[in-house]
């Protein structure tokens, strides 16, 4: 029976057409929605990264200024550590969130910060994100 075949054929291509139409419509909506969703996540993440980096930079600047005023208060080891923190901050690709080194540099910064904080025996705490973890040696 020809008509049966016709029916399935036409309905099959009809299915494909409808799927394709739906796909295109969805894709265009997805482009807009995905960009906005991504932007929201990026805003939050960028804020956290910026705050933490700025925090370390601020600490380093104060310590460096203090070293200028009175170098005897800081051991050479601590002074070296502060210099290394500064290098790490400057190396951080702030405007390139997709850069693969970001995580590694941030980890190194956190570690240096804790070592210096311990050496200075100050209760300096970065309260932002993420919560400072207890470091086990």
């Amino acid at each position, binding site marked *: 029976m020809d*008509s049966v075949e*016709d*029916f399935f054929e*036409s*309905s099959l291509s*009809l*299915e*494909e057409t*409808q*799927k394709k*139409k*739906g*796909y*295109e*419509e*969805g*894709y265009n*909506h*997805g*482009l*807009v*929605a*995905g*960009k*906005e*969703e*991504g*932007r*929201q*996540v*990026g*805003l*939050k*993440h*960028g*804020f956290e*990264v*910026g*705050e*933490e980096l*700025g*925090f370390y*930079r*601020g*600490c*380093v*600047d*104060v310590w460096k*200024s*203090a070293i200028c*005023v*009175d170098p005897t*208060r800081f051991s050479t080891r601590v002074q070296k550590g502060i210099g290394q923190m500064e290098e790490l901050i400057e190396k951080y690709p*702030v*405007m390139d*969130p*997709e850069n693969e080194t970001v995580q590694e540099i941030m980890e190194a910064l956190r570690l240096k910060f804790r070592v210096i904080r311990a050496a200075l025996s100050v*209760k*300096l705490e970065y309260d*932002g994100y993420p919560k400072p973890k207890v470091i086990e040696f």
Partner: protein
Amino acid sequence: MENSLAEEIYSESFQLSKLQLGHSSTANTPDNLILSGSDEADFHTDDRSWYDSDEESDRELQRVQNQFHTMGYRDGLLAGKDASSQEGFNIGFKQSVVASYNWGLVRGITSAVACLPNGLRESLIKTQDKRTKFQELHESVQSLSTTDALKLFYEDIMTKEALQQSGTSEGSVNVADSLVQSSDSNHLGNYSGELQSLLESSEIKVKLALEK
């Protein structure tokens, strides 16, 4: 007025009822363009063995087509999101990272100053008045968590965006209103400004600007 509203509300169902009037009229309604030309004619003459009436077959077809449309839509939506979310992420990241870096500077500097031994702090910040102001700034900054600060930042960019929009599309009245509010629309910047003025009277050397 009421008539046109009613038309608007009911036009859809109106069209639907037209759709169901039967074969001859459906050919003229734009909503029923899924089948076109000779296909439609073939279909409608041949399908009587499958369905009791044209009306029922139309509805069934519509249902099936909607189903496939929805399937395609879902796949497309996901694919579209996949394709654009990284771009959006980068845009948002760059939008917030500089402002929050400057905000983090305030946090870091005031925290580190607060933790200096007394003698050193006095060498860096000469007057008691300024030292008190540093301490006050430190305390007000400490009272804000990162989440609080993020909220302030969101408010700031929302205000800015609203300001930009009203600036382009609305009249001068709104612009004047927004200008009055704009001093409040930069919460985090206010902290930075306060820090900057305090730093000027201290020995603390700071790289304030974020390069790159």
